[in-house]
């Protein structure tokens, strides 16, 4: 029982990382209707910017805020400059653009900051909590993820801009007919996804350490979480992210032969099984319609 609890908590702590990433994956999915393979690299780059600011002597929270704002602006620019022109291109061409963005960000981070592993500070410390089941940073990660979710929910359900964004994503042609500027809604989605990614990166970096390839594994888990929870549901993505973290840990600990090596594969297999029965994810909305 002790061990189970411990593994669940450790899973939740990892899951918070995935949930954060899953949230930004869902954000971009809502805006452009497919996945952004460069999402992780964007988050990594944002984290490096914060790291650089801190290295120059900027206080942590100022660097944190600056990185979020810069990432938002960069997200909007990436949409306007890079993806707007290929918006109507076939999906495979868009995929190539994503991969280009991926490698541009990855290589420039390596070029500017090199590939040595760097430590990233956390303002929350690593004090053990709850009889050392989690530490303060992990608890903060869970808290921030949930806070982000609540903020997103309030934004999408409670504001007119959020409503316009939902309309633009669901039905661009009709959205234009009521006067929604669909192109800008997409850009805003990119900006928000980049900003959320920045938060995720800065929370993840103290755990996995900072280097240009830090997000590759994390993004895979984030995708898994988002797909498991349902790409149309931010809350589903967060729950999915946590679920992947917990599943992975429990499988590694309790299923013989799986161990640390195969735990990721096992978690992904379970996800595939879930999707066989619920293709739109655990919490994805299935559309009810009548003609």
């Amino acid at each position, binding site marked *: 029982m002790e061990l189970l609890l411990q593994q669940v908590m450790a899973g939740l702590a990892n899951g918070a990382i995935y949930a954060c990433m899953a949230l930004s994956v869902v954000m971009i999915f809502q805006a452009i209707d497919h996945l952004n393979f460069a999402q992780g690299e964007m988050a990594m780059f944002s984290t490096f910017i914060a790291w650089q600011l801190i290295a120059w002597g900027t206080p942590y929270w100022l660097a944190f805020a600056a990185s979020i704002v810069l990432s938002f602006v960069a997200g909007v620019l990436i949409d306007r400059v890079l993806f707007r022109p290929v918006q109507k291109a076939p999906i495979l061409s868009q995929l190539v653009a994503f991969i280009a963005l991926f490698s541009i960000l990855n290589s420039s981070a390596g070029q500017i900051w090199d590939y040595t592993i760097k430590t990233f500070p956390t303002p929350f410390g690593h004090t053990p909590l709850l009889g050392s089941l989690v530490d303060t940073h992990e608890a903060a990660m869970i808290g921030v993820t949930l806070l982000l979710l609540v903020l997103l929910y309030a934004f999408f359900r409670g504001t007119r801009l959020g409503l316009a964004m*939902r309309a633009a994503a*669901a039905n661009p*042609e009709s959205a234009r007919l*009521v006067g929604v500027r669909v192109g800008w809604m997409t850009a805003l989605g990119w900006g928000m996804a980049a900003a959320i990614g920045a938060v995720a990166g800065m929370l993840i970096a103290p755990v996995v350490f900072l280097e240009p390839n830090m997000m590759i594994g994390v993004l895979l888990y984030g995708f898994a979480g988002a797909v498991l929870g349902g790409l149309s549901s931010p809350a589903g993505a967060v729950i999915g992210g946590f679920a992947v973290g917990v599943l992975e840990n429990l499988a590694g600990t309790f299923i013989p032969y799986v161990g640390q090596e195969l735990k990721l594969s096992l978690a992904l297999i379970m996800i595939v099984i879930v999707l066989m029965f619920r293709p739109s994810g655990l919490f994805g909305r299935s559309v009810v319609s009548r003609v």
Partner: protein
Amino acid sequence: MMLEVSGLNAFYGQNQALYDVGFSLGEGQVRTLLGANGAGKTTVLRSICGMVRVAGDIRFDGKSIAGWATEDVVRLGVAHVPEGRGTFVRLTVEENLQLGAITRKDKREIAADIEHVYVNFPRLKERRTQQAGTLSGGEQQMLAVGRALMLRPRLLLLDEPSFGLAPLIVEELFAILRRINEETGVAMLVVEQNAALALELAEHAYLLETGRVVMDAPADVVGADESIRRSYLGY
């Protein structure tokens, strides 16, 4: 004239759908575009809203709007109820109505206008928190009209409002449209397959055939001309 169209050509890719189309519509007037399937009626509405590539002249209040972005045409007060109704199926009825007023800033008046739509369409009020996709065809058409009215439009473009609806519902809908025109003075351009109905609502009709205007006459003249009725309107 509020809306003046002349020499309008429209294209889908390489295919030309409209040839030298011209017509006009004054403040508060109701006019109809009639014609068979594929005559280009829908394309005329799409041309006005910048949803198709056009060459020619489209003027709204004397200002040339040909080739404008849809969002900008809407901001002039042009509300388009498209073919297939354009319902946001996953959003609630009330969210659909709010979207109709998304370009307006006057929040209090928007709330009042939503209540006013509910007066015209009581069924929508009963279903305000329901997903719009769960409404019946008639209710969705009412919602589409209600959503368009939320813009406080000066011009309402209606694309086959009777399509797929039961005769009784159609009659109710057209009665409401007439009342709205009288109450608010919104001009309407109605595309219809159901010519008899459209000629009752409109004061003037344009007849389209393979992308050209072949007749331009008062509604009662068109309705009274038996050969036209038989060869073009099918009743």
